[in-house]
């Protein structure tokens, strides 16, 4: 084979290979990647047990939460309990038990956190404290438990919100509850309360 023929063959092969590669990478693959199944985690709080509906000031009550992911495996699923009448958790909220794969963490007043089911990287400032237990990942049909002991800071109605959010949040099924009150994070919550009376 002459050198010029060889050069032509190699050049054609190179152009064909690169055309194939870039066409596939730039035009076909994005469509293919977007057609891949996006997981839909479905969080479910099967039980939120409160030990007392009324307590004397200075006493504590227990909260026990059982949470399951009934959908696809979540990259990250949270169970959060927010305390509207507290200014801080230290000395007022104690984690008595949990079996989540990671340690629960505290959200303090003033912390910057995601909102609107983490639909963007934007954050919002927390106006009240919360405890967030989470699984990363949270496998399908796996159940975790969280136990808290809470001591209200003042007399009156002690209110707390409970919710669970699965991520990626690609469907309305990926949050629990699916309706009701909306908190400052623009997310649905279940509202619970305990009456705190004079001793």
């Amino acid at each position, binding site marked *: 084979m002459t050198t010029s023929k060889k*050069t032509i063959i*190699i050049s054609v*092969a*190179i152009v064909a*290979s*690169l055309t*194939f*590669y*870039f066409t*596939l*990478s*730039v035009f076909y*693959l*994005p*469509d*293919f*990647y*977007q057609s*891949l199944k*996006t*997981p839909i985690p479905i969080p479910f709080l099967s039980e939120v047990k409160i030990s007392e509906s009324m307590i004397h000031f200075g006493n504590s009550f227990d909260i026990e939460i059982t949470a399951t992911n009934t959908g696809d495996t979540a*990259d*990250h699923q949270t169970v959060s309990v927010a305390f509207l009448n507290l200014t801080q958790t230290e000395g007022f909220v104690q984690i008595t038990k949990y079996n989540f*794969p*990671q*340690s629960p963490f505290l959200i303090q007043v003033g912390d910057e956190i*995601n909102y609107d089911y*983490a*639909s*963007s*990287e934007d954050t919002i400032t927390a106006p009240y404290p919360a405890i967030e237990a989470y699984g*990363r*990942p949270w496998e399908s049909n796996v159940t975790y438990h969280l136990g808290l002991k809470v001591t209200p800071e003042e007399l009156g109605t002690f209110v707390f919100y409970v919710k669970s959010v699965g*991520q*990626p949040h690609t469907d309305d099924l990926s949050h629990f509850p699916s309706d009701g009150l909306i908190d400052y994070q623009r997310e649905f919550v279940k509202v619970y309360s305990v009456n705190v009376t004079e001793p």
Partner: protein
Amino acid sequence: MRSRTSDTSNSAEKSTQTTLDEEKYRHSKLKFKIGCILISLGVLLTSSSAGWDITNHLINKPETFFSTPHLLLYTGVVVATLGSVIMFVSKRSFANQGKFKLPMRLVIIGILMVVIAGPFDYNWHVAFGLDGLLSPSHLILTFGLFLASIGALSGLVFARNFSPLLTSQKRENQIEQEGKPKQSVVLLGMDNLLSVIGILPLWITATGLLYMFSLPFSDTQSFDFNPDPTFAAIFATIGLPLLLSTILYLSYGLNYRFGILSITGAAFLLISILTTMIPNESLVPTISFYFLSIIPFVVADTILSYSKTKSLQYVAGGILGSCSFMVYYPFITYVYNGVFTHDVVFPSLIALVYSELMISSYSLLVGPLIVSGILGVILGRYIISHSKILEQKIE
């Protein structure tokens, strides 16, 4: 008669001495090369495990220092340290000569940094909890690995090309001058493959250094070392294709053989698949497409092997640069997401966000990527010519 006997005896003694010296030299050289290989393999294991560790943090958020990737990472450190000891032992008779001091020094400084970084990293975990990608201990570790990998690679290359006793062999072993094939066919297999083993850890550790200043994985409870998203995107757009192109040009330029660039590139893709894609099951369907990036590697390899003209070498660099957006998948998604898509990139959504970036941003990025790829070839040519000057000084 007596004189002739004496001459013959002297000649025989000299011959025996030369044989002994050659034997000793060969033995030292072998030990030196084994040391370099162990360092390269150790650094390769460490840096690959670090990639797996990043993925593990993304998926599982481990809360303990004692994880499987960390175990492998420090196993690699042990192997590299062992290699540096072997390299040091062979130093007196072999590595102490001329420019062999340079690889030795790089390895010693690099391994010392790596060894110091281990307990520093552990104490950092104890003091500040979970650390991010960029932390002082990680920076020392990665830079130490980078130096050690340069030392090991240059040691392997110098050992291949330098032979003070076996001058005839030296001539055979010399790397080919541009456009003048001189290479020994016998040496092609093992020594060329050794250069792949030497180059891969350098590529991966240098990538790690670039990732430290471009990936948003360094915001922790105690410190926020995350780079500014715009800076990160610019830094990655220049740095990643430049590195890819330089490294692959070096893999070609240290051997001047078709196939070595492709093997180096394929090995990088394979390591990336093993450490960043297989652990994240949502990325598994994308593996076969990811491996298609072997195509531009083979094309660049063909161009470089077939033509020695500068302009075609730059074309090869441009091709390599343009495919860096695909080669550095999946982590590159996080870099450009900070500027273009602004999504929260959960591990199961990486492919989706990457595809959005490909549609919206690749056309904007491809120009700078090509330019950086060309600059990579220029840098690679400079390094090769500079290393040849070093070799000439050794002679």
